[in-house]
């Protein structure tokens, strides 16, 4: 039987799991309230982070078009000056 500590490491590090490990984890979760809380916390973490990330990353589209043009200009300036 794997300990909680081992189960937590398997669940928390995205390790590729064998079928046997998957079964062990499922079984462990049925019996262990703490580990299933841990897993639930990770799920909440992921979902909240996705939401946060969405909020963080909606700069105006206009701005980005502007940024792209600015970058293209800069690139040209740089390659010109290195040609000289």
């Amino acid at each position, binding site marked *: 039987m794997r*300990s*909680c*500590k*081992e189960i*937590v*490491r398997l669940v*928390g*590090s*995205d*390790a590729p799991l064998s079928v046997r490990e998957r079964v062990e984890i499922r079984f462990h979760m049925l019996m262990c*309230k*703490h*580990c299933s*809380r*841990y897993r*639930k*916390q*990770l799920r*909440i*973490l*992921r979902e*909240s*982070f*996705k*939401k*946060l*990330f969405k*909020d*963080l*990353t909606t*700069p105006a589209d206009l701005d*980005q078009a502007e*940024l*792209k043009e*600015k*970058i*293209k200009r*800069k*690139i*040209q300036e*740089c*390659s010109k000056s290195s040609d000289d």
Partner: protein
Amino acid sequence: MKRRESEPQFTTPEFLNRLRSGDKEAIDSLVDAYTDHLLRGALGLGFVGDEAKDLVQEVWLAFVGGVSKFEGRSHVRTFLFGMMFNKARERRRELKHDANHDPIDDVVEQRFDLNGRWAAPPLDPEQFLSSAQTMLLIKDCIDGLPLAQRMAFCLREIDEHGTEDVCDILKVSNSNLGVLIFRARNRLRECIERKSSGGK
């Protein structure tokens, strides 16, 4: 979200040749395709506003500066993200993290007894993150992550990059990536628990 499979036009030998010769059209098409991705990545790494845009611009200029030597062993996008990670680390003046020891490992260790059973079990998820301040709280905690852990966590959880890509971007092995993600999640978990139970 676009995945690398949907951008095969950037992996043909013909395109790579044009790129290496500094063909303006080829470079511009990449700028059009990936600037948004990079900007989102910079924001995810905690760069704000103009700082994020500056970083993205720096990445492009560095990319073009070395493009004649680009071998195309990784997908262009992966390569660009790898450059961004390095530039971000330079800007933050963050030294390469000592991969062997991280204090969070001790914190995790202390959560268990000698038999590997929980000694200090996790909070009830209801108490863990429930309030309207959640977003602020989580943002605060993410800002406390070392850059490599933050990058690993962001790339992984947003799910835009496969494991192989993430390893390539961070230049770590598969098992090291697992360690980074495990540490990031535990740091975040501990931080949120501490904050939501009234601590600092």
